[in-house]
C-alpha cells in the first residue's frame, strides 16, 4: 500500500480490526453462496440428512444439473435469454444515449417539457392492464419484442446518463463544432468516448434487468418455447407446488409431480447467478465512478 508519506502507519490493532471486520463481511457474503453451490452438487440423501441446505460436504453429484439440462428446455431458454439480453441491452443503450444527449443540449427543441415527461414516469407507473393493452395493441403478444420495447428506456438510467453528458465541458464540444463536426459526430467521436464509465454502468443495469426479467414473459408470451431462462427456472422452483389444497389425486400430478429437491432449486440459483457474476468484475471498476459522477453533478 502506498500510504502518503505524512500519514502514520496504521497500528497493528487497527489493521487487525479491519481484517476481522472485512473477513466477517466476506464470510457473510460468501457463505450463503457456498451453501447454495454445495447443496446444488449434493445427492438427495445428503440433502435429506441435512434437512435443508448442506453445509458439510457429503456425497456429490451433478444429477441436478443433468436433470435441468436434459430435455433441452433449459438450454433453449438460455439462448433466448442471451439473445434478449444482448439485443435488448444494445437497443436500450442506443436509445438511452441518443435521448440523453438530445436532452442534455440546451438548444434542443422542447427538451424541457420532454424531460419533464420522462421524470414523470418516476412517479407514475403505467399499471399492468394499460401496459398489456398497449403491447397487445401493437401486436407484440408472443413476440420477443414484447420483452424489450416496453422496458427499453428506464427513466433513472436516462437521467444519470444525461447528467453525465452535462458534466462534459461545453468547450470540448464547442471546439469540435468549430472544426465542423455535426451533432452526431460530436456524440460519436467526442462525447461517447468520454462517457465509457457511465455507459458501462447503465449497460450493466440494463443487461441485469433483461437477464432477470420474468414477469413480462409471463404476461406477453403464450408460447412456452419462447420463455426466457428466468421464467423456466421459476417453473422448476414451483414444481409440484400446485395450489390445489387437499387434492391428492391428479392435479399437477401426472407422474412427475415430485417437488423439486433442494439440489435442483439450488442449481437453478447457480445457473441464474453465473452470468452476472462473470460480467460484473469487468464493469465493476466503472461502477462507483460512473454512478457517483452522474449523481453528484446534476
Amino acid at each position, binding site marked *: 500500500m502506498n500510504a502518503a508519506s505524512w500519514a502514520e502507519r496504521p497500528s497493528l490493532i487497527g489493521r487487525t480490526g479491519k481484517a476481522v471486520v472485512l473477513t466477517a463481511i466476506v464470510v457473510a457474503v460468501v457463505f450463503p453462496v457456498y451453501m447454495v453451490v454445495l447443496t446444488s452438487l449434493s445427492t*438427495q*440423501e445428503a*440433502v*435429506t*440428512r*441435512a*434437512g*435443508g441446505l448442506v453445509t458439510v460436504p457429503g456425497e456429490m453429484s451433478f444429477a441436478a444439473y443433468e436433470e435441468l439440462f*436434459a*430435455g*433441452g*428446455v433449459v438450454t433453449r431458454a438460455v439462448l433466448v435469454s442471451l439473445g434478449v439480453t444482448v439485443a435488448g441491452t444494445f437497443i436500450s443503450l442506443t436509445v438511452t444515449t441518443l435521448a440523453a444527449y438530445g436532452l442534455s443540449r440546451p438548444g434542443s427543441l422542447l427538451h424541457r417539457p420532454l424531460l419533464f415527461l420522462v421524470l414523470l414516469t418516476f412517479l407514475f407507473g403505467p399499471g*399492468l*392492464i394499460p401496459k*398489456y*393493452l398497449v403491447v*397487445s395493441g401493437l401486436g407484440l*403478444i408472443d413476440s420477443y419484442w414484447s420483452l424489450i420495447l416496453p422496458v427499453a428506456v428506464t427513466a433513472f438510467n436516462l437521467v444519470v446518463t444525461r447528467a453525465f453528458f452535462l458534466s462534459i465541458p461545453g468547450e470540448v464540444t464547442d471546439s469540435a463544432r468549430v472544426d465542423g463536426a455535426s451533432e452526431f459526430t460530436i456524440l460519436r467521436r467526442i462525447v461517447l468516448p468520454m462517457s465509457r464509465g457511465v455507459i458501462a454502468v447503465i449497460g450493466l443495469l440494463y443487461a441485469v434487468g433483461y437477464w432477470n426479467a420474468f*414477469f413480462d414473459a*409471463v*404476461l406477453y408470451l*403464450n*408460447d*412456452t*418455447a419462447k*420463455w426466457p431462462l428466468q*421464467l*423456466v427456472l*421459476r*417453473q*422448476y422452483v*414451483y*414444481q*409440484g*407446488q*400446485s*395450489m*390445489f*389444497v*387437499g*387434492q*391428492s*389425486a*391428479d*392435479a*399437477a*400430478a*401426472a*407422474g*412427475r*409431480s*415430485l*417437488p423439486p*429437491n*433442494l439440489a435442483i432449486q439450488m442449481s437453478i440459483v447457480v445457473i441464474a447467478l453465473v452470468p452476472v457474476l462473470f460480467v460484473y468484475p469487468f464493469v465493476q471498476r466503472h461502477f462507483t465512478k460512473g454512478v457517483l459522477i452522474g449523481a453528484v453533478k446534476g
Partner: protein
Amino acid sequence: MTPPPQGASTARPSTQATTRRGFLGLVGLTAAAGVLSACSPPGTPRPGTGGATAAAGDKLKALTPAFVPFDAIKPDLPGTRSTLPGVPDISGGFSSYPADPVPALTRKAGRGGSYKAMTPLWGPPPPGLASNSYFQAVNADIGATLEFQITDGVTYVDKAIARLAARDIPDLMCIPNWEIDKMADFNKAVDQAFEDLTPYLQGDRVKAYPLLANLPTAAWQWSIWNGKLMGVPYPTEPFPYALLYRKDLFDENGWNQNPRTADELYRLGKEITDAKAKRWAFGDIHEMAWPIFKVPQEWRYEGGKLIHKYETPEWELMLEWMRKLFAEGLIHPSVAGSKGANEKELIGAGQILVYRDGLGGWKELLQQHRPKNPGFALGVLPVFAHDGGTPIMYHNTAAGLFTFIRKGTPKAQVEELLSILDWCAAPYGTKEYELANYGVKGKHFTLGSDGVPKLTDLGTKEVAYTYGFLGGRPLYVDWPFPDAAKANLAWQNATFPYIEKTPFDGIRIQRPGKYAGLQVPTEDKFTDIMRGRRPVSDAKQIAAEWRRDGGDEARAFYLKVLRDNGRA
C-alpha cells in the same frame, strides 16, 4: 341438489353419509375461501369491495346439469357420496392401477377444429405443439387441435386479469377458484368474456356429454354466476388438510398415534421432542389447531348475531395452546424462526414428526422417499376436539377450478368444445385418462413392476398436466402405495361425519375484496401472539382492529346475505 339416484353412485355411500340425509333441505356450498387463501400464493387479494355477491342454493338448483354417474369404473376402495349440501364427495380409490383401462367414449370428441386453451402450470414447461409428440397424440385421439397457452401458476391471476381486461380471451380459459376470489368485479367480467353454457348443459341436456354428466352437482353449483351456468368445474376432495406424521418412527418408538385431546397432543409433543437428537415434534400446525379447538371455519351464527372466528373464545384458547408449543420448543426452530422453512424436507429427514399438509403431501413424500427407504411411512392423526368432545373438521369448496368458453364462440364450436371437455373429463381407469395423463404407452410411459405407469425420458420431457385442467373428473385416490391409499380413505371416511356445518350452507358467496384483503395482515398479528412476540391479551385488540378495518362491514354484508335467504 337432488339426492343422487340410489345405487348409482361410483362410490358406495357409507353409513355416516346416510345419517346425514336430514340436511338435504339446506342445499348448498360453503365458502372455504379462508382455508384456500391461507394457502394461496404470495400476492394478497386485491382491495375493493366489488364482486361481492351471493346466490341461494334454491335458485341454483334449476340450473345445474342432471347427474348421471359413469358406471364403467368402480373404485375398489369405497368413498363417501356426499349428501351434505356443497360438500365434495370422497370419490374412493384404487389400490392398483387398472391393467386394462376401458375406453370411455366410443366416438371422436372433436370435429377437426383448432382451439387455444390457457392453463396454469406449476412445473417446467413442455415443448410446444409443433415439437411435442404427446400433444400431437392426444389431439389425434380427441380429433381436434388444442394448443395450450401454458402460464405460470403462481402469477396466473395477473395474466388472467390482463387478458380479461384486454378482451384477449382464448377459446378455453381455466381460472382457479382462489384466483377468482382475488378479482374484483369478476361477476361483470364473466358475462362479458365468457359464453353462457346454460342452454347447452342445463338439466337433461348434459346427457349429450356423458362424462360431464358424471360430475357432482355440488361442483356444478359453484359454476353459476349471475344466474347462469358459466363454466365446467373441477371437483375437489372434501378435506383441505390434516395432521400427517412419521408412522415408521412412531411405530418404532411406540409413541401414541391416537391423541384424543389437545393436552394429549401437547404431551406427545413433549415426549417426542429431543433437540439434542435434532428431532422436534411439530411443524407449524396452527391451521389444524383451529378445528381441534372448534374454531368455526369462518363465521358462527348465534343468537341473531354473526361472530367471526377471530372473535370466538375458542380462537383465544387456540392461540394460547399454539403459543405454548412455540414457547416450549416443540416446533422445529427453523420453522419457528422463519417463514421459509420447508416442512416437507424436514419431515422427510425425520427432524419433525408431525406436520400439517394436504393429503396430497402424503403421496409426494412417499414418492420421494420410498424408493430409497422402503420402510418410510406416514400416517394421519384421527380428528379430535381439544376437550375430548365431538370433533369438527373443515371442508373445501366443491370446485377448485373452472374452464370457461370464450364469449361469441359460434354454437357449433361451443358444442365441439364441450365435447372436447367431455373427453378431458374421463375418469381414472379409462383409456382417455391414461392418454391425457401419461401419453402413449410404450412411448411416453411404461408400466413398472408394480403395474403403475412410469414416464419415460421422452414422457418426462413432453407430458405436462394440461388436458387434465380442462373440465374435471371425480378425484380418486390413485396412489401407487396401497397401504397409504387405504389409510387415507379410511381417515377421510371416518372424518366425513364431523364436517362442520356453517351458517352459509346453500349460498354461493364471493368474498368482498376488502374483507378478503384483511385476512393476511390480521393473521400476521395473531402469528405474533403464537410466536410469543405479543401477549395473548392482545387478541381482543387485534379483533377490534379487524372489526374497525372492515370486519364489521363484512359482518353486515354476510348478515344481509343470511336475511336475504330467510335465515336471519
